């Protein structure tokens, strides 16, 4: 449904996209994961006809995003990173206007606007100016605006960036609801947990091209699951040896020899087992932490170095 091949785009001295390939079959959710400046927004702008690529090509349901813009625009819905609704209009006026511009009749646009306001819990705020909306409300309205024409293909550019944790979880529920009815979704995010929650497949991008690609489970396997950090009371020569059974590869040891860390496979009671093993070896411990894998870990293991 969404196919992009070898997309390239340069802005001045910045190579925003450097040969990016993306593919999302119909009815699937593709997560595009990457840090700020990786090229996520540029990719979405090209796929949604807002920008033309310098090189490469992209198709939505077989329609070229450069040559067949109107055909593409009939199929897609977009919720961008910066809310793209009219601040002066009310939420309802925005939705009716966009529905009309998207080829709905006046009556159908009004009905659809009312439905969406209801679905996104905005009915009460629907007749107030968007100016007064909170960040979460704006995001929801923006998403509703993207859905006004029931598009079969949806693009969400960092839908939860800047939202508080409650709004974030709520947004996840909304997105899950959308994809349950067969919408093809491309979602960009900076958060591994978000991609993990929502996406069927994840493409990790950095410096404008894909550096890894797979399901959340496959990526986590590459990352090594989680990271174990142990802080000793005093340096001990056998500490690294005692941790070896838990850590994949050799643990890295800090200069003062008090902190040891390394990738681990999460298992029930891991921290207890680690403390017991160290205690058996006569090593006293001040702190044990198991960190779930973060985007930094993904990059650390995929690029083999600190960013």
């Amino acid at each position, binding site marked *: 449904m969404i196919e992009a091949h070898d997309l390239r785009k340069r802005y001045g001295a910045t190579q925003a996209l450097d040969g990016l390939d993306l593919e999302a079959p119909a009815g699937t959710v593709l997560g595009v994961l990457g840090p700020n400046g990786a090229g996520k927004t540029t990719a979405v702008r090209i796929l949604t006809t807002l920008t033309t690529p310098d090189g490469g090509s992209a198709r939505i349901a077989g329609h070229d995003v450069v040559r067949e813009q109107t055909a593409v625009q009939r199929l897609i819905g*977009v919720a*961008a990173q910066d809310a*793209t*609704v*009219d601040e002066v209009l009310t939420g309802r006026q925005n939705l009716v206007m966009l529905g009309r511009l998207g080829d709905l009749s006046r009556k159908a646009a009004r009905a659809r606007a009312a439905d969406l306001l209801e679905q996104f819990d905005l009915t009460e705020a629907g007749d107030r100016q968007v100016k007064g909306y909170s960040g979460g409300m704006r995001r929801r309205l923006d998403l509703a605006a993207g859905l006004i024409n029931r598009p079969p293909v949806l693009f969400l550019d960092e839908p939860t960036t800047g939202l508080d944790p409650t709004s974030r979880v709520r947004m996840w529920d909304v997105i899950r609801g959308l994809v349950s009815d067969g919408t093809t979704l491309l979602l960009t995010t900076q958060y591994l947990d978000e991609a993990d929650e929502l996406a069927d497949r994840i493409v990790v991008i950095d410096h404008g091209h894909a550096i890894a690609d797979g399901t959340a489970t496959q990526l986590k396997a590459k990352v090594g699951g989680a990271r174990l950090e142990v802080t000793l009371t005093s340096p001990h020569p056998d500490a690294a040896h005692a941790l070896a059974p838990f850590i994949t590869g050799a643990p890295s040891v800090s200069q003062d020899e008090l902190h040891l860390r390394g990738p681990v496979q999460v298992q029930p009671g891991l921290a207890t087992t680690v403390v017991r093993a160290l205690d058996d070896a006569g090593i006293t411990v001040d702190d044990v932490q198991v960190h779930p894998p973060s985007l930094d870990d993904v990059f650390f293991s995929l690029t083999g170095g600190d960013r």
Partner: protein
Amino acid sequence: MIRVRRAARDVAVLTSRNLVHMAREPLRLSDVTVQPVLFTLLFIYVLGAGISAIQGGSYTEYAIAGLIAMNLTTSAIGTAVGLSDDLGSGVIDRFRTLPMWKPAVLVGRSLTDLLSATLCTLIVVATGLVVGWRPHAGAASVVGGIAIFLLFSYALCWVCACLGLFSKDAESSQGLGLVILFPLAIVSNALVPTQHMPAVVRAIANWNPVSAVTAASRKLLGNPNPSAAIHAWPMQHPVVAALIWSVAILAAFAPLAAWMYRTRTLD
């Protein structure tokens, strides 16, 4: 045919959106509501007091058409500012992802500004009637004398659309618009006869489209029109000159604005 109907609908939707903006921010309309009344009173009772004789009638009779010209010309900045505002907001990106007729953004803006220009003109006319101005021509001729202003104003708003598309934000398009439009309105026969201007200024004024439109309107309204005595071609044939100017400006700047809009929004 369906395509034309859809384009017309998109223009109507965006025009009504702009009208909602106006209704929500009525202070922005001051340049077509308060300003025309203010200018009319100031020019007639302050400046006009120092101008004793206009060939063929009083200064009030002479000034109203010129005040319409002046108010319409300066308030055309609104098009530039409105468009700059839109371009600076995210909503343009939203429009660009919709399967709509893209120039509707520009056409909707121009129609909104035509409506405010009509309001502006009616306010000057009403103020003029209060201070003693009267047209002296048949109804059709009077309507023609007003319509010629609206046509020119519509053409001018496409020039301003280009200014808005050229400027990086609303403030700079306001500044740029003022620098271009204010001299355009002043170096003309709108507020004083051109006869006593220095030769170079007079030549510019006689060929200024604002002069042609103002002279045409004075002729059609049956008001004093001292420019009729000037030998420059546009002053001899003001109605034809006004129409040619308006159509030429429209033909040049509407496609230019459409092209600028396409390139500006295609980063």
